[in-house]
C-alpha cells in the first residue's frame, strides 16, 4: 500500500510567470486581501520581491495538493490560485486529475478540503466547482465558509471591474459554490465515505485556518495548510493531537527563518502611533479586511483604553465592519484568552472605533484610519494617502510585506519624497513612514517542532522556495531522522504505508497480557501519554501466543494452552532429563539445564 502525493502546478506547467511590476492594482491582486507570505521585514522583503516571478516547481504562489491513498481514495487539499498570472495559468492544472482515465472530476476526486480563506488556498474553488463541474463534497471550517465569499467576491470585482478582464466566474458562481460547502468544526471526525475520514485541527494563521488529518484504513496523513506555532493577539497557536502518521505535508514558507519577539515591535508601533496623534497628526494604516486589521485594532483599542485616549479610530470600508461582526460570532475560533473573557468584554466590540465617512478625510485634528486595500495598491487607501502624505505631521504605518510596484513597496524600500502615480499625478511625501511586520506563518523552529511532535514516517514540504526547502529537508533528515522530500510541481511522490491485518484474539489471550487495573493509575498513564506513544495509546506488554490460521476463517490468536483444545488434540510432553542422576548439580547451573527447566515448566501447564 502507498500514498501518492501530487502538487498541482499551474496550467500549462513550468511556465515562467510574468513580472507584473508596474501596476498597483495588479500587485494588489496578487495578494488581494491576504497578508502575504514574504513579509519578513525590510531587507528580506526587498529581496523576496525581486524574486517574485513564480518559479517552476517549488513555488509559493498557490496551493493545491492531491493525495491518493491506496484503494483509490483521493483528496484535494486546497484549491488555490496564483495571483501572479493573468491567464488560465493562475489555476491549478486540473486536467492532470483526469490523466488516469477518470470519467470526470467527480470520479477522480473523493473530496476537496480547504484549509483557510486566503486566495492562494481557495481562489480556484468556484472555478473548479462551477466551471469545471466538480460537484462532490467540499469541506472547510465554519469561519472559512463564512469569510471566503468576502475574499472571493472582492477579488472577482477588482479583477473584472478594475482590470477589465473576462469574468472567470460570477458572483452567483461564488454563492452557488459556497452553498455546496460542508462546514467543519475542529476535532470533529467526519466520515466522507465508508473508508475516508477527515478531521480539522486548529492552525492559528488566520481565523478558521485548519490543519487537516485524513485517514483511509490504516494510512493516515496530515496536511498543514499555513499555520502558526505562536499565538498572536487574537488567534491561538496551532494545536494538534499526537497522531500516528504515515505522512506529514507541511508548508515551508519560512523554512529558514527564526523570528524574534513580537512585543518589541508592538511597543514600537504603539509608540509611533501615539507620538503622531499627540502631535495632532493623522495615522493611515493600509490593511486588508481580514486578519491583520483585527489584530492591530485589538492592540490599539486596548492601548487607547489604558492610556485614556479620546482620538477616534476609523475603519474605512463596510467590509471591515462586516468582518468584525463575523469575528464576534466566531469568537470560539480566536485565542483562549479572548474566549475566556468575551462574555464580559468582547475584544471585537471596539470601544474606540467610530463610524467613518468619506468626508472625514479632510477633517482637521488627529485620527487613526484603517483603510483597504493594504500596500496602498489603489482604491481608498490610495485616495487617503494622496491627501495625507504631504503633511509631515502624519504617519503611514505599513503592516506587513508589500509587493513590488505598490506605493507601499516604494515607501518601504527607501524614503521617497515624491511618488508618481501616473504621468500627470504625483504626490509629495513628507509624512513619516513606519513599518511593522509580524507574520502569521510558522518559522523554521515551528516547522521542526511540529514535525518532531507528530513524528510521521515521511515528510513532504510544499509551499516554499526551493533553496529553503532543501535546507529544511536536510535538517529534518539529519536531526529528526525522518524521510523528507519536496516534490516539484506536477511531480508525484509515492510513500509506502503500513498496513495492519485484522485478526481475532481470544479473551484469555487478551486478559493474560493486560495490565492489572491497579497498575493502571493515571500518573503512570500520563507518563505514557507524555512519552513517545501516540495519544490514547497504552502498552499492555509483550504478548506470546499461537496464531491459528484456518482456511476461510479469520486468523485467531490464542493462548498456548488454548490451542490444543481448539485443535482437539492432546499434549505430548517432551522432557529432558539427565542420564546420570548424579549430575543433578550441573542441571541447576549449566546452560542446557536452563533450557530444560524452562521446557519442563511449560509442559507442566
Amino acid at each position, binding site marked *: 500500500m502507498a500514498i501518492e502525493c501530487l502538487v498541482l502546478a499551474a496550467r500549462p506547467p513550468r511556465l515562467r510567470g510574468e513580472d507584473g511590476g508596474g501596476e498597483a492594482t495588479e500587485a494588489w491582486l496578487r495578494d488581494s486581501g491576504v497578508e502575504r507570505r514574504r513579509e519578513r521585514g525590510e531587507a528580506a522583503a526587498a529581496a523576496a520581491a525581486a524574486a517574485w516571478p513564480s518559479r517552476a516547481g517549488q513555488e509559493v504562489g498557490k496551493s493545491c495538493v492531491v493525495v491518493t491513498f491506496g484503494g483509490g481514495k483521493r483528496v484535494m487539499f486546497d484549491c488555490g490560485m496564483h495571483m501572479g498570472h493573468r491567464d488560465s495559468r493562475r489555476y491549478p492544472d486540473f486536467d492532470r486529475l483526469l490523466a488516469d482515465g477518470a470519467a470526470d472530476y467527480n470520479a477522480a476526486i473523493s473530496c476537496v478540503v480547504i484549509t483557510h480563506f486566503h486566495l492562494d488556498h481557495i481562489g480556484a474553488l468556484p472555478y473548479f466547482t462551477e466551471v469545471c463541474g466538480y460537484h462532490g463534497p467540499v469541506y472547510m471550517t465554519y469561519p472559512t465558509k*463564512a469569510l471566503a465569499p468576502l475574499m472571493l467576491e472582492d477579488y472577482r470585482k477588482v479583477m473584472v471591474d478594475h482590470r477589465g478582464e473576462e469574468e472567470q466566474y460570477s458572483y452567483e458562481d461564488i454563492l452557488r459554490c459556497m452553498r455546496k460547502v460542508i462546514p467543519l468544526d475542529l476535532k470533529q471526525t467526519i466520515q466522507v465515505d465508508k473508508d475516508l475520514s477527515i478531521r480539522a485541527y486548529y492552525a492559528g494563521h488566520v481565523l478558521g485556518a485548519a490543519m487537516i488529518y485524513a485517514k483511509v484504513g490504516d494510512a493516515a496523513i496530515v496536511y498543514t495548510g499555513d499555520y502558526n506555532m505562536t499565538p498572536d493577539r487574537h488567534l491561538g497557536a496551532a494545536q494538534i493531537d499526537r497522531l500516528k502518521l504515515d505522512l506529514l505535508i507541511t508548508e515551508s514558507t519560512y523554512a529558514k527563518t527564526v523570528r524574534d519577539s513580537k512585543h518589541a515591535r508592538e511597543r514600537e508601533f504603539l509608540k509611533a502611533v501615539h507620538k503622531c496623534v499627540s502631535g495632532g497628526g493623522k495615522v493611515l494604516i493600509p490593511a486588508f479586511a481580514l486578519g491583520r486589521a483585527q489584530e492591530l485594532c485589538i492592540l490599539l483599542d486596548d492601548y487607547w483604553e489604558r492610556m485614556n485616549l479620546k482620538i477616534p479610530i476609523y475603519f474605512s470600508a463596510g467590509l471591515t465592519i462586516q468582518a468584525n461582526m463575523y469575528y464576534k460570532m466566531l469568537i470560539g475560533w480566536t485565542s483562549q484568552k479572548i474566549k475566556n473573557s468575551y462574555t464580559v468584554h468582547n475584544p471585537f466590540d471596539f470601544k474606540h472605533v467610530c463610524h467613518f465617512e468619506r468626508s472625514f478625510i479632510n477633517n482637521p485634528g488627529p485620527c487613526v484610519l484603517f483603510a483597504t486595500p493594504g500596500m496602498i495598491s489603489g482604491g481608498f487607501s490610495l485616495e487617503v494617502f494622496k491627501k495625507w502624505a504631504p503633511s509631515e505631521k502624519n504617519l503611514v504605518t505599513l503592516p506587513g510585506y508589500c509587493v513590488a510596484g505598490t506605493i507601499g513597496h516604494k515607501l518601504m524600500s527607501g524614503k521617497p519624497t515624491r511618488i508618481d502615480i501616473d504621468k500627470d499625478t504625483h504626490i509629495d511625501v513628507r509624512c513619516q513612514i513606519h513599518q511593522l511586520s509580524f507574520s502569521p506563518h510558522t518559522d523554521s523552529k515551528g516547522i521542526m517542532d511540529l514535525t518532531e511532535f507528530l513524528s510521521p514516517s515521511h515528510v513532504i514540504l510544499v509551499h516554499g522556495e526551493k533553496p529553503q526547502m532543501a535546507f529544511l529537508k536536510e535538517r529534518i533528515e539529519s536531526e529528526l531522522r525522518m524521510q523528507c522530500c519536496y516534490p516539484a510541481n506536477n511531480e508525484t511522490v509515492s510513500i509506502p504505508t503500513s498496513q495492519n*491485518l485484522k485478526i481475532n484474539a481470544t*479473551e484469555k489471550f487478551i486478559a493474560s497480557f493486560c495490565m492489572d487495573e491497579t497498575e493502571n493509575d493515571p500518573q503512570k498513564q500520563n507518563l505514557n501519554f507524555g512519552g513517545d506513544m501516540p495519544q490514547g495509546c*497504552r502498552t499492555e506488554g509483550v504478548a506470546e501466543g499461537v496464531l491459528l490460521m484456518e482456511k476461510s476463517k479469520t486468523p485467531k490468536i490464542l493462548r498456548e494452552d488454548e490451542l490444543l483444545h481448539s485443535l482437539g488434540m492432546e499434549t505430548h510432553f517432551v522432557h529432558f532429563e539427565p542420564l546420570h542422576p548424579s549430575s543433578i548439580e550441573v542441571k541447576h547451573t549449566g546452560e542446557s539445564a536452563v533450557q530444560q527447566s524452562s521446557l519442563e515448566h511449560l509442559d507442566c501447564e
Partner: protein
Amino acid sequence: MKLVSAKLLPSPSLSRAPQAPDANAHVTSQTCLDTGVDGGYYTPASHLLEVEGLRILLDCPIDLSALTAFSAVPLGASSSSGDAEDLIRGVPYYRSPTAVAAAKAGRIDAVLVSSATGLLGLPFLTRLPGFANTKVYVTEVAARMGSLMMRELVEMHREFVRCYGPDRDQSPVWMEGEKLKKLMSVLQKITTEDEENNNLAALVSLYSLDNIEECMQKTQYVKYGEEVCFNGMLMLKASSSGLELGNCVWTIKGPRASMTYLPSSIFVSAHALDFDYSSLKGNDVILFSDFSSLNGMYDDNKKMGEHIVDETDILLASNSVFSTEKSFRDDGMDEDETIKFLCSNDDIAEEIERISFICSCIIDAINSGGSVLIPIGRIGIILLLLEHMSETLHSSNMKVPIFMISETAEEIITFTNALPEWLCKSRQEKLFSCEPLFGHVELLKEGKLSLFSHLYSKGLLAAWKEPCIVFCPHWSLRHGPAVHLLHRWRADKRCLLVLEQGVDAELTLKPFMPLAIQVLGCSFLSGIKVGKIDPLLGLLKPKLILFPEGQKSLCPATDKQPWSFLYYSKGKTIEVPNMREEFEVRMTTEVAFGLQPRQLDKTTAVARLKAKLLLSNGQYVLAAAKSELDRSERHLLHWGTVDASCIPSALQEKGIVCSFSADADYSAPSDRERVISITSPGEALVKVTSERTTIYCDDEETAERVYDALRSICNGI
C-alpha cells in the same frame, strides 16, 4: 540463572492466566441510578455503566424536589401571607444525587454528561475519594451552560443564607421533629413510586462555588463528532441530540461492543443542531434513556390555574402511529421514508405553534394592563420566545419593555450569539449571510431587551416600567427574582405567570396562595415522540436495547424485530451479555512477516507469535516487539502421539546410532513405554509413551541432535 527461578515462580503472564476468565472484568452491566423527576429535561436520568472493568457514570443531575418543602425567602416581615405555614423556614437542603452512593461504593473512572442539567449534581461528587482520578466528559457548550446554571443556583441559594445565617456544623433545627416528618411526606408525595429509595437519597446542603470550580477542573470538553479515547480502551463520541444547545448522545465503543447512550432527543429543532442519529447506526447496544413521555406532555392536558388550552399538545397524532405500523409491515422498510417521517418539520411546527400560543396569551395580558412573569429554565425556549414575542409585539405595534433578570443573563445572551457550530442548520445559514444568530442581538441593540443581574441592580429601577415581560429564574418558585415578582403580582388578575407543566403546580404555588394572577401551564417537546421510537430503532439496527421497565408499553417487543430488549428499572443492575466472544486485534505487517507458520493439514496452519500488545484508541494492536522472537529450533508445545517405531529411522537419518532397549517388545500395545538407547554421538536414552517423550542425556549437543530428530516426527510448535 534467571529461568531456574522461573521454575519455582511461574512467569507472570502464566500466573495471571487462571484468574482472567472468571474475573468479571469483561462483563458489561448497567445500573439505573435514577430515572429523573420531570421526564428528563431539568432532571435527566442517571446510570452507572460497567464496561471492560471500567465504571462509568452517565449524567449526574441535581434533584430539586426537596426545595418545594421549603419556604421562599420572605421579602419583609409583613409580606409573607399565603399558605406557607407548613413550609420549612430555613436554608434548604437538597436530595443528594443517587450517584453519590455509587461513588462511595467504588471508584468512578469516568463521567459522561449529556446535557447542562446532567452536570448540575456533579459538584456533590467531586469531593469524594472515589472521584479523585475521575475524568468528566461533556460538550463545550453544555459545560459552559452547566457551570453558569450551577453558579446561578449557588447565588440564589445565598439569599437563604443571608436571611437565615450560614450553615452551622450541627444539623439545622428543622431536621428534628415535626418539620422533618413533613419534609419527608412532601418528598414522598413527589416521588411516590420509589419510597424505599428515599433513605438512599439523603439530604445534603448545597455545594459551593469552590466545589463547582473543582468539578469543572475535572471536565474535558468535547465537540460534536470528536472522538476521545478513555484509558486507551474506550472510544467516546458525542453527537448532537437536538434537545438543547450542547446536548448530546454518547457512543461508547469498547474493543468488543459499541453502545449508544440515548438521552432525550429531538429530531429537528428550531435552535439546536438536529439529532445526529446517523452517527449511532450499527452500535450494538442502545441504552434508551428518554423519559420525556412521562413529563405530562402526552397526558391529556390537565387544567392548571385558569388557562390551559394548548391543543397542539394532544399528540401522538394518529397518523404517526399509522406510519409506524406501516414501516414495519413492509419488511423492506424504506429507509428514506423512515428518515422523512422522523425528520419531518412537524416537531418544529408544533413547537412554534405552542410558542405562538404563549405569545398570544402574553399579548392579551399586556393589553389588559398586566405584566408577565416567565420563570422558565429552558434556554432554547427562552430564545425562541424572545424572537417570536418581539415579532408579535412589533406587528401589533406595542412597546413593552422586556427584562431578563439573572446573575448569568448577560453571559448567556452573549454566549448564545457565538456558537454557530452548535445551532440548527437554518441558524448556521445566518452566520454565512452575516446576520446575528438569534433575534436577541437586535433586541438588545434597539434597547427593547434589558439585562440585569439582580432585582436590585443599578439602573433597574430607572428602566422599570409596568406592564413588562420578565424572564427570570427559578422555575421552582423558591428562589431567584421570580419569587419576589410573583409576590408583587400574584393578586393582580391581569398579570400572567407562564409555568412549565411537569412542575407540580399545586405544591409550587402553595406559598403564593390565594392567587389571582393567571397561570399558563405549558409544555414543550422534550424528547423522542413515542411514535418515532420504533422507526428510529429500525434505522439504527441495534442488537440489544436496554429499555426502561416503566415505559415498556411504549415500545412493545414483537417477534419481527431483529433486536431484543432488556428492561431496567431504578436501582437495579442488569447484566448485558457479551456481544462478541473474541476481540478484534490488528497485527502489523511487520509482525506478520516475522511469522513462521507450520502447516498442520491442508486447511490449518499455526504459528508462534511474540509481539508487543498495544491498546490504541480502543483497538488492540500487535506490533513488533523490540526483542526478536526467540528463533530457537525447539518447540515448546507438542501434541498427538509419537509412533515409536518411526523413531529409529528418524534418528538414523540424523546420523545417530540407536537401538531399542533389550527388553523392547515391538508387539506391545503402543501405550506401553518404549525405550531407545543411543550410543553415538553421545550416550542417551529416549523413553516414549503415548503422551510423553523423555530424553535422558548429559551431553547438551547430543540432546539437541536427538531432539532435532524427534521433532520431525512429532507435531509441535
